[in-house]
C-alpha cells in the first residue's frame, strides 16, 4: 500500500506527459498546410514580425496590418507600380464641382459570400469611417460629408470643403469596401471573426500571434489567382528565429531582416535579400522654442552641415538608405525632386555659423532617440552625436524604449532634438509638409513661419493639382532653408526572400500575393 502513493505520483507525472502528447495530436491536423521546401509547393508563406491588429479596417493605423488586408479587400482606387492613382473598383468618375465627385462601380464585382458590390456598400463603408469618432481612421476620412447613391452602381461622394486629396484617401488604409448586408445581418463580431471583402483572397483562419491563412477567391472579378492555393502569414517576432525560418525554407518571405543578418541570408543557398526604398524618412525634429540654441536658424543650419548623411547610410545602414533634404520622396504627390538623393555637409561652414550665432565655444544639447523602433536607430543617434562633437556641440544621446519615447513627445517633454522616422500612407506630400504648420506643435517644437502657413492653407483646398503641387514644393524649399527639421535619409524595407519565388518589394510595404509568382 505504501508504494501505491509513490506509484501514483510517478504515474501522475507520466500521465501528464501523455496529456501533452494528446494535445500535440489535436493540433497536428491544424498545421498540415505549413510550408515545406518542396519546389511545387503552392503555399506562399510570409513571416511577419507582429500580428495584424484587427480585421476592422477602419480601426487601426498599422501598415503591416494593411499589408495583409490588401489581399482581401479592394479600394475604390489603387496606386500602380509608378505610384499613379488608378481606378480599382471604380469604372468611371467625374468631378462635378469642388465638393462632389460622381463615380460608377465596375460591373460583376462580388463579395466573398457571393453578394454583388453596390453603391450602398460604398455609402455604408465611407459614412461609417467619416462619422464614427471612435475609429482610428476617422481623422483621415472626416472630410467626407456624405455619400449619395444614384443607382445600383453610381454614387456621389460629397466633402465638407474642396478636398484635393480625396483620391489619395480612397486608395489607402481604411478605405477597403465592406459588405453592408453581411455586416448588418450578421453583426460586427461575426464580421471580425469571419471577414469578407471583394479581394483576390478570402479569409480562412486567424490564430492570434501565430498565423493568418487566406485562400484564393474563385469568383474574383479580375479572375481567380491560380498561382497559390494558400497564402499563410506567420507571426515570428524574434528576428533570429525569422531569419532561421527563411534559411531553412520554412517561409518564402521574411520581413524586416536586420543588417547584421544580410550576409547570412545572401550567403545561404536558396535565399537572397531584396530591398526597396520605403516611404519613411528619418529626421531630427528640432526645438525652435526661445531659450534653446536651436531656436536660431544659424545653429540649425550648422547642425545640418555637420551631419554627414552619406556616412550614416554607408556605415550604419550599409548602403540601405538614400540621403535626402526633404521628406516628400519621389512617388509622393508634390515631391521636390531636386532635394532628394542629396545632402549638405560642410563642417567648416558649420563652425563659422556657430561662431556667428554666438556659440563659438559650442554648447550642450540633448538628443532623444528610440531604440529598436527604426532600422539602426540607436546607432544613427550615436553617430550623429559623434559628428556634432566635431563642431564642439556636445550631445547627450538619450536612448529610449518606444512607449516612453511616444509619451515623452506627447507630453512635450522633448529637448533640443529627437530622432524619428515618419512615413506617409497617403502618398500625398501635403501630409508630410503639414508638420511645419505653426499651430500644430505649439509647446513641442514651436516653429513658426507665416509664409509656410499661408501656403499650407491655400494648398489644402486647392483643386488645381498642378498649382497645388507647386505650393507643396515651395514649402519644401523654404523648409530646406529654415531647417525646422533636419532630414537624414529615406529608409529601405529589407526582405529575405526564397529563390523559388519572384517578389518585388513595394514602396508602400504591401505584400500583395497576386503579384508574387513561383519561378
Amino acid at each position, binding site marked *: 500500500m505504501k508504494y501505491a502513493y509513490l506509484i501514483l505520483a510517478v504515474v501522475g507525472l507520466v500521465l501528464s506527459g501523455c496529456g501533452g502528447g494528446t494535445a*500535440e495530436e489535436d493540433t497536428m491536423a491544424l498545421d498540415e498546410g505549413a510550408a515545406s521546401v518542396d519546389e511545387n509547393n503552392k503555399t506562399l508563406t510570409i513571416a511577419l514580425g507582429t500580428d495584424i491588429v484587427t480585421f476592422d479596417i477602419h480601426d487601426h493605423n498599422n501598415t503591416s496590418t494593411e499589408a495583409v488586408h490588401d489581399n482581401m479587400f479592394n479600394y475604390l482606387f489603387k496606386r500602380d507600380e509608378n505610384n499613379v492613382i488608378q481606378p480599382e473598383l471604380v469604372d468611371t468618375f467625374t468631378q462635378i464641382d469642388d465638393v462632389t465627385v460622381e463615380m460608377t462601380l465596375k460591373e460583376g464585382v462580388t463579395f466573398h459570400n457571393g453578394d454583388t458590390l453596390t453603391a450602398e456598400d460604398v455609402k455604408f463603408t465611407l459614412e461609417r469611417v467619416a462619422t464614427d*469618432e471612435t475609429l482610428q481612421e476617422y481623422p483621415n476620412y472626416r472630410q467626407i460629408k456624405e455619400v449619395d447613391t444614384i443607382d445600383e452602381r453610381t454614387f456621389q461622394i460629397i466633402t465638407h470643403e474642396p478636398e484635393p486629396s480625396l483620391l489619395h484617401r480612397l486608395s489607402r488604409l481604411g478605405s477597403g469596401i465592406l459588405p453592408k448586408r453581411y455586416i448588418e445581418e450578421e453583426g460586427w463580431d461575426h464580421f471580425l471573426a469571419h471577414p469578407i471583402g471583394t479581394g483576390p483572397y478570402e479569409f480562412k483562419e486567424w490564430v*492570434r500571434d501565430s498565423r493568418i491563412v487566406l485562400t484564393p477567391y474563385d469568383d474574383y472579378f479580375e479572375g481567380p489567382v491560380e498561382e497559390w492555393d494558400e497564402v499563410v502569414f506567420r507571426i*515570428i517576432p524574434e528576428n533570429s*528565429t525569422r531569419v532561421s525560418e527563411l534559411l531553412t525554407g520554412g517561409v518564402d518571405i521574411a520581413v524586416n531582416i536586420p543588417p547584421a543578418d544580410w550576409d547570412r541570408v545572401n550567403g545561404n543557398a536558396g535565399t537572397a535579400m531584396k530591398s526597396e526604398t520605403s516611404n519613411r524618412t528619418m529626421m531630427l525634429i528640432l526645438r525652435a522654442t526661445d531659450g534653446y540654441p536651436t531656436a536660431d536658424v544659424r545653429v540649425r543650419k550648422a547642425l545640418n552641415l555637420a551631419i554627414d548623411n552619406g556616412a550614416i547610410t554607408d556605415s550604419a545602414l550599409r548602403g540601405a538608405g538614400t540621403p535626402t533634404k526633404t521628406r516628400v520622396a519621389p512617388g509622393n504627390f508634390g515631391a521636390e525632386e531636386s532635394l532628394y538623393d542629396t545632402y549638405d555637409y560642410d563642417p567648416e561652414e558649420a563652425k563659422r555659423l556657430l561662431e556667428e550665432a554666438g556659440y563659438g565655444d559650442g554648447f550642450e544639447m540633448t538628443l532623444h532617440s528610440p531604440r529598436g523602433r527604426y532600422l539602426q536607430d540607436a546607432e544613427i543617434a550615436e553617430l550623429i552625436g559623434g559628428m556634432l562633437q566635431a563642431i564642439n556641440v556636445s550631445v547627450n544621446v538619450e536612448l529610449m524604449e518606444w512607449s516612453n519615447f511616444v509619451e515623452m513627445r506627447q507630453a512635450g517633454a522633448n529637448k533640443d532634438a529627437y530622432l524619428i522616422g515618419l512615413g506617409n500612407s497617403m502618398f500625398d506630400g501635403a501630409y508630410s509638409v503639414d508638420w511645419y504648420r505653426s499651430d500644430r506643435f505649439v509647446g513641442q517644437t514651436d516653429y513658426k513661419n507665416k509664409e509656410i502657413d499661408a501656403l499650407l492653407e491655400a494648398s489644402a483646398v486647392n483643386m488645381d493639382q498642378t498649382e497645388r503641387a507647386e505650393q507643396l514644393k515651395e514649402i519644401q524649399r523654404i523648409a530646406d532653408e529654415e531647417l525646422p527639421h533636419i532630414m537624414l535619409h529615406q529608409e529601405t524595407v529589407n526582405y529575405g526572400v526564397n529563390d523559388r519565388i519572384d517578389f518585388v518589394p513595394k514602396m508602400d510595404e504591401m505584400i500583395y500575393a497576386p503579384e508574387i509568382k513561383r519561378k
Partner: protein
Amino acid sequence: MGPFLLKRLAQIIPVLFIISFVIFALVYIAGNPVALMLPDDASQEEIDQLTASLGLDRPFIVQYGNYLLHLMQGDFGDSFRYNTSALPLVLERLPATLELAVAALTLAVCIAIPLGIWSATKQNSPLDLIAAGGAVLGKAMPNFWLGIMLILLFSVTLGWLPVSGRGTFAHLLLPAITLATGIAAEMTRLLRSNMIEILSQDYIRTARSKGIRETLVVYKHALRNSLIPLVTITALQTSTVVGGTLITETVFSWPGIGQLLIQAVNTRDMAIVQACVFVIAFLVIAMNLLADVLYRFLDPRIKYD
C-alpha cells in the same frame, strides 16, 4: 485532509486579492497607454477624449475599485489592441503554454531522476563529475541563448527539426528541451545531494546489514525519501517554468501565454497584461497546493494543522 484543503483554498483568496492590487498598481505606475494607441499626429482633444472614454482620468482608488468589481465577475476588461474581452484571449492560449510546460517538466523529471540516482550512488566517479558539471552548465545557460543555439544546430545546420511554430511533436521538441535544461539541472543537483545524505543514514545501514540487495536499498528505501524535496522543487519550479516560457515562446514563436504577455507589454495592452499575470499567479498557487497534497501522499507523517 478535508479541513486542510479547505483552509488552503481559503488562503488563496487574500493572496489573489493582494496580487490583483499589485498588478493594478504596477500598471497604473507604468503610465498612460493612450499615447501609444493614437497616431503620431493626434490632437490634444483626441487624447483627452480617449483618456476619458477609457476611464483613465479618474482617481486611482476609483479605477481600482472598478477594476476589482469587474474582476469578481471574471471580467479583466477589454484588450485595447484586439478590442475584445481579455480573459478569453488569455485562456485561449493556456493549452499551448500548458503543453509546453508539461512537456518540459516531464522531460526534466525523466532526465533528473536517473541522473540524480546514478550520480549519488556512484559518488565522485568520473561519471558523477560529468553529470555534476553538466548540471552546472545546464543551470547557467540562459534560455534565450540556448534556444537560438538549438535552432542553429538542429534546424538550420542539420535540418532535422522545424524552427518555430506549434503543431507536430517535432515542433514541441526544441522548445521543450530549451525549457527543460535548466529545470533538469536544478533537480539533478537536488536529488543527488539528498540521496547522498539519505544513503548515509542509519536505516539504510541497517537495511544493508540485513543483506538486502543494493538496488532494492536504493530504489525502495532511499529514493522514496529523496523524492519529497523533489516534489517541492517541482512545484517551486512552476514559476521558473512559466518565466521560462515567456522567453522560450518568443524564441520559438510558440503561441502561448508568454508570447501574448510579451506582445501585450510592448503595446501596453494593459488588460491583457493583467489577465496574463493573474492567470500565471493562479497557476503557481495551484501548483504549490498540489505539491502540499502530494507530500501528504508521499509521507503520511507530515501533518497539516
